[in-house]
């Protein structure tokens, strides 16, 4: 008998939509050409590549030529931060040859939020080692950045502000339009990591004054190994990879045509289904959140109660540890994730949960459920049936169980 399995970890990755797989298939075999080749094999690949570019661009109101395909959101985020940083440094160096600049730090300041994905945190840390200065903004208890703090933090040396659109962990959505407006007024580039929001909630890079935006295919029913970076026309960037000059010179490498075709198809589907699906997911999410908070004592919601991704629920439970819960759930066939220290390679609790003011033991007991296309009401109800027993049992084992 096949065990019942319920996947509630769509924020980690999603299955590829069969329609996406079908669209990709010919590009592995029949239409296998290198998009840089002049012959017909190359040109049919090129055609598919450009069609996907238009598709992806249109989801966020960008121009096709403003989309750079990459291998992942991690690469996109690295390219955004380092690409802008290196370009600013190079430009400062050029200027210095003509005018002696009194301010050595000019063009070396970057602002980020404290709840970015590790790839932004780590890339920033590395840039700090290279002589850039990094300001980490505060966030409120819901994980929101106050645009006023950005206004205060921007100096004349600031080259880039990077704030993620929606948190992968707690689901909180940032006021990106307000942040974008400030950055535009101050003449500072604004990058947003939209990996979790892309295709789930509307994004318009123009009205939101976004200059750079990262996204990934595998979070919206596309394949793994494909991401993109929107780079507003005229933005000065240095590539990370030098080579054959693909992707307008910003990302050399033979282009992953089948993957990108899949990304394009996933975006095409998202465009059609996003509004309906988001509404449906938000309903399931609220059923899950209300069910847990109503049924289980000592359960608390992390992140903003309203301004959150339609598919994210993050809850911390008193007196129990996250990894134990994840494994218990797994044994019941349910896939979820945790920000507990025990589950991380560094044995540290999630920096996001600590940044929103959770204490160590609170972060220790956090669970994230993320919903998707194939999540059903029945599955949520199954979780709601199973979870109270798991928490009860772990609390029986815990020394801190009674109030």
């Amino acid at each position, binding site marked *: 008998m096949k065990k019942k399995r319920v996947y509630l970890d769509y924020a980690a990755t999603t299955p590829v939509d069969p329609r996406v797989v079908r669209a990709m298939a010919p590009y592995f075999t029949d239409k296998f050409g290198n998009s840089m080749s002049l012959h017909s094999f190359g040109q049919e690949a090129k055609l598919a590549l450009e069609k996907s570019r238009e598709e992806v661009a249109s989801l966020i109101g960008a121009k096709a030529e403003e989309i750079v395909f990459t291998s992942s959101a991690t690469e996109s985020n690295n390219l955004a931060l380092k690409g802008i940083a290196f370009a600013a440094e190079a430009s400062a160096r050029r200027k210095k040859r003509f005018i002696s600049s009194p301010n050595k730090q000019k063009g070396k300041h970057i602002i980020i939020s404290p709840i970015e994905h590790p790839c932004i945190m780590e890339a920033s840390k590395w840039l700090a080692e290279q002589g850039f200065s990094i300001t980490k903004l505060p966030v409120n208890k819901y994980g929101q950045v106050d645009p006023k703090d950005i206004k205060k933090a921007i100096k004349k040396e600031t080259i880039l502000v990077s704030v993620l659109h929606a948190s992968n962990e707690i689901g909180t959505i940032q006021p990106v339009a307000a942040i974008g407006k400030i950055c535009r007024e101050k003449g500072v580039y604004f990058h947003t990591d939209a990996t979790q929001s892309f295709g789930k909630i509307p994004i318009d890079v123009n009205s939101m004054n976004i200059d750079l935006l990262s996204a990934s295919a595998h979070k919206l029913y596309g394949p793994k190994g494909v991401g993109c970076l929107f780079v507003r026309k005229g933005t000065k960037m240095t590539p990370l990879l030098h080579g054959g000059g693909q992707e307008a010179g910003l990302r050399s490498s033979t282009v992953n045509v089948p993957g990108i075709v899949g990304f394009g198809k996933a975006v095409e589907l998202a465009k059609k289904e996003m509004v309906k699906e988001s509404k449906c997911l938000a309903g399931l999410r609220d059923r899950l959140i209300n069910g847990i908070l109503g049924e289980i004592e000592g359960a608390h919601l992390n992140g903003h109660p309203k301004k959150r991704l339609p598919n994210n629920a993050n809850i911390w439970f008193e*007196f*129990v*540890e*996250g*990894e*134990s819960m*994840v*494994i218990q759930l*797994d*044994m019941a066939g349910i896939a979820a994730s945790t920000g*507990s*220290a*025990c*589950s991380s*390679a560094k*044995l*540290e*609790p999630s920096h996001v949960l600590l940044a929103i003011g959770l*204490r*160590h*033991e609170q972060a*220790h007991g956090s669970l994230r459920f993320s919903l998707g296309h194939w999540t059903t009401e029945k599955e949520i109800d199954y979780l709601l049936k199973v979870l109270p027993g798991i928490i009860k049992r772990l609390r*029986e*084992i*815990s*020394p*801190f169980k*009674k*109030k």
Partner: protein
Amino acid sequence: MSQIGPYTKKVIEYFKKPRNYGRMKNPDGIGKVGNPVCGDVMWLYIKIGKDKKGREIIKDIKFETFGCVAAIATSSVITDLAKGKSLAEAMKIERKEIVDSLGGLPPIKVHCSVLAASALSEAIYDYLKKNKRDVPAGLEKRHELVEKEKKEIDEKYKEWIEIEEKMHQG
């Protein structure tokens, strides 16, 4: 059964059906330890009795653990290993024996077995001290190390610990 997390079948068995968990009334010794890095907490209770030869043995043992799968499994396994052993034998239970009894632990989780061994040695230390008995040098040294870490962990869980201590007294 498919693979569950990074754990062996044995670990999962102990985690699924932990033995000897829960609070003990009027224990002869309590060992309270915590790992300041990951934040896991283990409390171990022992009751001392005598065997036929008149040697002091661990007659009963229970644990309470706030932590991951490995922390719960190692707590459970150490209660199995220590039950019925003389104090001298129990003091000798080391990390390796715990890990071996579980068929191995992922490297990153080995510290959980250290915590379990410390919890037991602390409980024995507590018993000896309470009864104004001589504490072997090795046990004393270990206690000093644990105390240092305990300070950090107590700070972390101050509120929860205070509630529990009140419960114990009341």
